[in-house]
Structures are given as structure tokens and as C-alpha cells.
């Protein structure tokens, strides 16, 4: 982390970049938040540790409009999102100075809390440079510990790899964290009966409070104005103004990002109700891979998304009835 701060100061001072986009220490030991740093001094508040899960690529949309370059810290998975935004002309490559930061897996405090640990005062072992296999946690009730892997976000268990797809320079070590089958959860649902599937999603979706956290954090949901907020799909007869969107919001959102979603997992990370929203996106990814050939959004800037492409002998929609 120190190397990162030193380098950032250097770039700020020599005028290469006008600001730094990174994470700032939060009010609790586990909630750093995305922040812009304009001066070398302000970087004292900069932090990069296991809790810096937030994907900063979406902030580059606004940063691209600002004067001068922005230094942006991107984890390997964040670079996919950045590439995808580049493909869609939403960010300006020339306005970004990308430092690819190492990643040893990002942590989810909810998972720690789920192990029964309460009253967290401080956590050690989550530092970017010296990430350990076990987290030592000081609590109001004494010292506790938790295996790093057990505290990791779901998405890190199914990590696409620790290779940065786009960067100007790299700082920091990474550690392989993938130890689960990416599509296992999706397959589990696919194997359910229609009744079970419906019950599962009905239960999950009825938790939704339409806070829009998923939409706001999603790097693919970068529309200037969301269709759900415009009157384009409105109609004169509509009695209850928002009933339609309410009911179909997550399905439509998933469809809108299908083929563009990099599976960064931010939607599930930020959902205050803990809805596994990534299960929608990942289903589309699995279908696309199976039906149209493997495709990873953002692996390469400028690639043609599966839904803007076709083959003459693509499967017919009836294949859905034939499968499973």
C-alpha cells in the first residue's frame, strides 16, 4: 500500500495526473469507500486492503469529463469493467492512468458477522501487502479469528483470474482465490423443478426494497437515465405508475446488461437485503457461453457483444424447452 501511495504522490506532483481515484479510510475498520484525492496530503487517508471491494471503473465515467488525467486503481476484475466501458465509449482511455493493483481476495464483513463475531473493533490480516490466511479480530468481547477464505466475497471464490486486462503499470502482489465452480449455483437452480425455482426467486425477490443500490453500483448500468426512470416505456393506460417495473425490474435489468455484464459481483455485494442478484447475470453468461461460444465481457476492448452478433445457425428459442 505504501508503494502505491508513494507512486500516486509522485504522479500527482509531476503533473502526470490531476487526481487519484482510490479508497478512503471509513468510519469502521471494514468500510473503506471510493474517493478522489486531489493533493498529496489528502492521500494520508488513502487505504487499500481486503475490504476495498468497490469497483472504481464506473467512477471513471464522470472522471473522464474532468480536466486532466485521473489515476485510477483497478483490481484485476475491475479492469474487465473498464474495458467494457471503453467498448461502449463511456470512458476515455486518455483521461485514465491505470494502476493495476494486486488482489488477494476481497472480504465481506457480513460473512465474518455470520460466523458469530460481533462488536468488531479492529481487524488485522486484511492488509493488501501482508494478507494472512487468518484474520485476527479484536472485538468488544475479546479476540476472535476467522479464516480469510471464509470471509471472502462469493465472487472471489469464482474469480476469473488475477490478470489485469488493461493498465499503465502494476503494483502489488495477487493471490489465486478461485476455489469454487463458477456456475455451480446456477446449475443447482437449473436442476430444480419449476415450482422450486419459482419459490426460490419469489422468496429472494420479495425482499427487494427498490433502493437501486444494485443499479447505482453496476458498471454496466451506466445509462445517463435509466429506462425505469424515463417515460419511454410508459403508456397512457397505465393505472399504477410503477407496478410494471417493480415486478420485472431485476429480470429486465439483467437482460439489459446481458452480454455486457463482467460478472464483477458488485450488485450482490451492495444489496442491503442480501439478494443474490448475480445469479441472474451469471445465468445469462452461462447461456451465452453454452449457446454462442465462450464470451467474457471486457476481456478485450472493442469486442462485439453476443446480443449484437449472430450466427446463421444459432439455436432456435425452442432449445429452452429441450434443455433440462
Amino acid at each position, binding site marked *: 500500500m505504501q508503494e502505491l501511495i508513494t507512486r500516486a504522490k509522485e504522479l500527482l506532483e509531476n503533473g502526470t495526473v490531476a487526481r487519484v481515484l482510490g479508497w478512503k479510510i471509513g468510519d469502521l475498520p471494514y468500510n473503506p469507500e471510493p474517493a478522489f484525492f486531489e493533493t498529496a496530503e489528502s492521500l494520508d487517508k488513502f487505504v487499500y486492503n481486503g475490504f476495498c471491494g468497490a469497483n472504481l471503473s464506473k467512477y471513471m465515467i464522470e472522471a473522464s469529463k474532468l480536466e486532466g488525467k485521473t489515476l485510477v486503481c483497478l483490481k484485476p476484475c475491475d479492469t474487465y469493467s473498464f474495458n467494457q466501458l471503453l467498448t461502449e465509449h463511456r470512458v476515455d482511455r486518455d483521461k485514465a492512468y491505470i494502476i493495476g493493483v494486486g488482489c488477494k481476495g476481497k472480504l465481506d464483513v457480513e460473512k465474518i458477522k455470520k460466523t458469530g463475531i460481533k462488536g468488531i473493533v479492529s481487524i488485522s490480516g486484511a492488509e493488501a501487502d501482508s494478507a494472512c490466511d487468518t484474520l485476527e479480530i479484536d472485538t468488544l468481547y475479546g479476540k476472535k479469528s476467522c479464516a480469510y477464505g471464509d470471509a471472502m466475497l462469493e465472487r472471489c471464490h469464482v474469480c476469473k483470474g488475477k490478470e489485469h486486462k488493461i493498465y499503465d503499470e502494476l503494483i502489488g502482489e495477487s493471490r489465486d482465490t478461485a476455489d469454487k465452480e463458477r456456475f455451480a449455483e446456477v446449475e443447482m*437452480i*437449473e436442476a*430444480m423443478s*419449476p*415450482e*422450486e*425455482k*419459482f*419459490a*426460490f*426467486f*419469489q422468496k429472494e*425477490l*420479495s425482499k*427487494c426494497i427498490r433502493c437501486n443500490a444494485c443499479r447505482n453500483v453496476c458498471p454496466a448500468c451506466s445509462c445517463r437515465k435509466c*429506462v425505469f426512470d424515463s417515460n419511454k*416505456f410508459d403508456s397512457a393506460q397505465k393505472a399504477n405508475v410503477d*407496478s*410494471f417495473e*417493480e*415486478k*420485472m425490474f431485476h*429480470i*429486465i435489468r*439483467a*437482460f439489459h446488461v*446481458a452480454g455486457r455484464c463482467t460478472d464483477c459481483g458488485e450488485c450482490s455485494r451492495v444489496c442491503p437485503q442480501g439478494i443474490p442478484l448475480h445469479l*441472474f447475470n451469471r*445465468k*445469462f453468461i452461462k*447461456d*451465452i457461453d453454452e*449457446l*454462442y461460444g465462450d464470451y467474457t465481457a471486457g476481456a478485450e476492448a472493442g469486442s462485439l457483444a*453476443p*446480443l*449484437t*452478433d*449472430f*450466427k*446463421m445457425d*444459432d*439455436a*432456435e*428459442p*425452442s*432449445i*429452452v*424447452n429441450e*434443455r433440462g
Partner: protein
Amino acid sequence: MSVNNEFKPKIVAFCCNWCSYAGADLAGSSRLAYPADVKIIRVPCSCRVNPMFILRAFEKGADGVIICGCHPGDCHYSTGNYYARRRMTLLFSMLDYIGVEKGRARVEWVSAAEGVKFADTMNSFVSKIKDLGENVRLGDIRCKN
């Protein structure tokens, strides 16, 4: 009016202007009967059909939605139905994934010359929807009401 309470499904058919709508016209001028439950909406091309239209229909109480377009390779706009095919395949797969019965939504390719196919398709689709019964799940997946 009929007094029996036989299930009368609501079925929305999106037909592309160039092939399937004309196929439906041909079915009509050939007097090939299919159930009145089917109501056709004319769109320029199957690629005009937004998944939101389909979800909206279901949400508003449609029991089945069918999208008809030119045969692949014969699209009036060259490639429209190829895009529609991918979109609908993914959408239908998603519907299946969330537990909506298979077969509530369908895509069929019907050319302007295929009046018989149009009528056959509608007959088979209506009978499929009758088998599935009323659409309750898509009415409200969140079931908050």
C-alpha cells in the same frame, strides 16, 4: 354469450409486417380457423420486439406470448430475426430459470406464403397454453401484493 367457464387464454402474437403478418392475412383469406384468443400486434420486424413488451404482456395478464418473424435468412431487413432469435432464446431461458412454465412464450418463423403454418402454429400454441392453464407466476414474481 357462452356460459361455460372454459379457460379462455389471453394470447398476444407479435407478427412482423413482411412475413408473419402477411402469413396471418393469408390464413384469414384462406379461411383457416384458429382460436379467437389470439390477438395480433403488427411490428415491422421480429427484432422490434423488446423483451419488455413480452414481460409487460405477461404482467398484464397474458397467458401466452408468441413472436412470429420471417424465416432465418429471409428477413426483410436481412438480419433482424437473427438478433430476435438470440434475444428471445436468452429471455425464454431466463423465464424458465425463474420457474415460469416452459412454452408460455414461443418464437415461430412463418413466411408470407405460409397461411397454413400460421393457423397450425396458432392452434398448437393455444392448445399448449390451455394445457398450461392460467399464467399466475408472471403476474407478480415478487408477490408483494
